[in-house]
């Protein structure tokens, strides 16, 4: 144990142990445990409302975990910035949040946004220097955004802004890059482009990447590990280990089928009896029973995700039904 009482993490960047997470007073995730090592590409996958964003916020230190520990030991940093809000000497984390609504008025060019990634957390005024300008240009080239370096940030499309924010997060050379649903509002080619970019950056700059998404398919080729969250719990492992009928059925608490169709993965509520745990009222499983769980890889979420209310809580509207006579789930 070091002086902060944290376990020594060796070469791990981040370790979550039995973390549970609350949103608006309700526990939406519990017992989440996984580690991230330098250079790893991890996918945080799950349907909308499963608690992915909240978990990321806990990792960043933006809100506290309801229980469990988030350990960010690891390589010592001399820079104060991005230390996951924990006051320790954690790894440097770069963060790309979900869907920024950027004002058209915002007096920031693309290169200004990226420059803020270097020192946006500092007081005072820095006169522009050649060195900084070059750093910014290089970061923009790395993400393929150099063409519009002088455009106003509010003028860009979603995909373009995404790239700029990635450059902003990367310019301070973080150890870990966190992206919250970066692919959600992009079309297929753009999403593919971002994934390719992230994989390349992870390789070239030895940055660990943690990406949350509700559709795992674009990420399957590049993920080293998947953290699959659903029904309040998480399953951790490689894609082959986790994305399987028996594992996910146990996770969801009722039968789901994992289908591989034309190289894509579909998770679909199936017929047949329930497997394993998950009867109504089981402690720790929020009331997901009989709700149609359709987690289709390539179909928009509107086609039936778990019944959630606005705050992403599960089960408030799902009427409890006994397992057994199966609900026919729609195939998306």
């Amino acid at each position, binding site marked *: 144990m070091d002086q902060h009482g944290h376990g020594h993490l060796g070469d791990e960047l981040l370790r979550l142990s039995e973390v549970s997470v609350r949103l608006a007073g309700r526990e939406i995730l519990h017992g989440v445990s996984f580690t991230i090592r330098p250079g790893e590409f991890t996918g945080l996958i799950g349907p909308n409302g499963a608690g992915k964003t909240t978990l990321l*916020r806990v990792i*960043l*230190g*933006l809100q506290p975990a309801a229980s469990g520990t988030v350990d960010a030991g690891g390589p010592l940093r001399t820079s*104060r*910035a*991005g*230390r*996951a*809000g924990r006051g320790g000497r954690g790894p440097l*984390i770069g*963060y790309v*949040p979900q869907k*920024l*609504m*950027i*004002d*058209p*008025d*915002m*007096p*920031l*060019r693309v290169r*200004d*946004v990226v420059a*803020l990634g270097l*020192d*946006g*957390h*500092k*007081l*005072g*005024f*820095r006169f522009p220097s050649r060195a900084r300008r070059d750093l910014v240009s290089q970061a923009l080239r790395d993400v393929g955004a150099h*063409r*519009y*370096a*002088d*455009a*106003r*940030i*509010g*003028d*860009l*499309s*979603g*995909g*373009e*802004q995404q790239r700029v924010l990635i450059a*902003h*997060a990367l310019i301070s050379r973080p150890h870990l890059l966190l992206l919250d649903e970066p692919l959600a*509002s*992009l*079309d*297929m*080619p*753009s999403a593919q*482009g971002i994934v390719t970019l992230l994989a390349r950056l992870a390789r070239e700059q030895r940055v660990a990447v943690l990406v949350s998404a509700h559709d795992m398919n674009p990420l399957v080729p590049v993920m080293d590990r998947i953290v699959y969250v659903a029904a309040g719990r998480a399953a951790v492992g490689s894609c082959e280990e986790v994305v399987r009928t028996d594992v996910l059925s146990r996770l969801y608490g009722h039968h789901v089928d994992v289908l591989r169709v034309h190289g894509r993965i579909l998770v679909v509520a199936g017929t047949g009896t329930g497997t394993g745990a998950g009867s109504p009222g089981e402690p720790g499983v929020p009331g997901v029973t009989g709700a149609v769980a359709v987690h289709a890889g390539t179909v928009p979420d509107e086609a039936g995700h778990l019944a959630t209310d606005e705050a992403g809580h599960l089960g408030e509207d799902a009427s409890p039904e006994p397992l057994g006579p199966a609900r026919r789930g729609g195939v998306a």
Partner: protein
Amino acid sequence: MGHVLSYVFAPGLLGSGPVRAAALVGAVVAITSGVVGVFTVTRGQSFAGHSLADVSTAGGSGAFLAGLSQFWGFLAFGVGAAAFMELTGVQRRRGRDVATGVVLGAALGAAALFLYLGAETTSRSGASFTVLFGSIFVISPATVPALVACGLLALLTVVALSRMLLLSTLSADIAAARGVPVRAVGAAYLMALAVAVSLSAVVIGAVLSTALLIGPAATALRVAKSPGRAMVTAALTGLAATWAGIVLAYDSYYWPPRGHGWPVSFFVVALVVTFYLLSYVPRGRAGSGPGRRRDGAREGPAAPGGHRFPAAGAPAGRDTG
């Protein structure tokens, strides 16, 4: 040429003590308001900025009632209201606007009372006008150093915080994750705003200080793309409007109705609004409509001044894909 100059600069202008004081204080106020205003507009706090001005009216009229210098009254109420707003900060934008409006209403009610009582107890009946519309030509020389100091303090605070403010306005989450004390930065900025607004309330009146806060900043945001350029442009625009306003107000002494003079606040506001409307005159390549483009199909960086605002209510940057 000399004849024209003497027509514009009426006799005695540059030699007049009150005018010089007005020019100095006006300059400080204009520059401070312009720079602070850039952040006010960007953060969508125009109503809060305006309300602080009106709230400080209550302070000014209270000070008038108590026989104190109006500036300190403005300042006390302005800063107090800002603190109150920060403490009771409501998350949703609309909730915040309504709360601001209610505070504004209550403060104006108090102002009504103070002015009424003031008029009853003293015989100075012109107080309504000066409190509401400014008294730049009758600033007592004793308060000039205090005014200038306060202005510079507010200006320096905002400049020092500018990067953190920009980052937290771009995304509060990114800023917080980077270790920026978002709440504290916002509060400090609100205080600077209150001071800037109180100052301009003294100069051109509580009711019109919004003009110096919002006008030059809105103009600058239309023509400048980077934060530094926006702040400089706002400062210069405000300065030009204020100085020209002072000159014109002085000259207007000779305009009908003779011997009366038109209020400086009118000129300043008229100029500020004129500059803003001028910024709509197309410059260079006009923008091609709302800022939605297919990813990867952009034609290149937008020309300066060619920026187009998307239709009201439509957030920019949402991918069409």
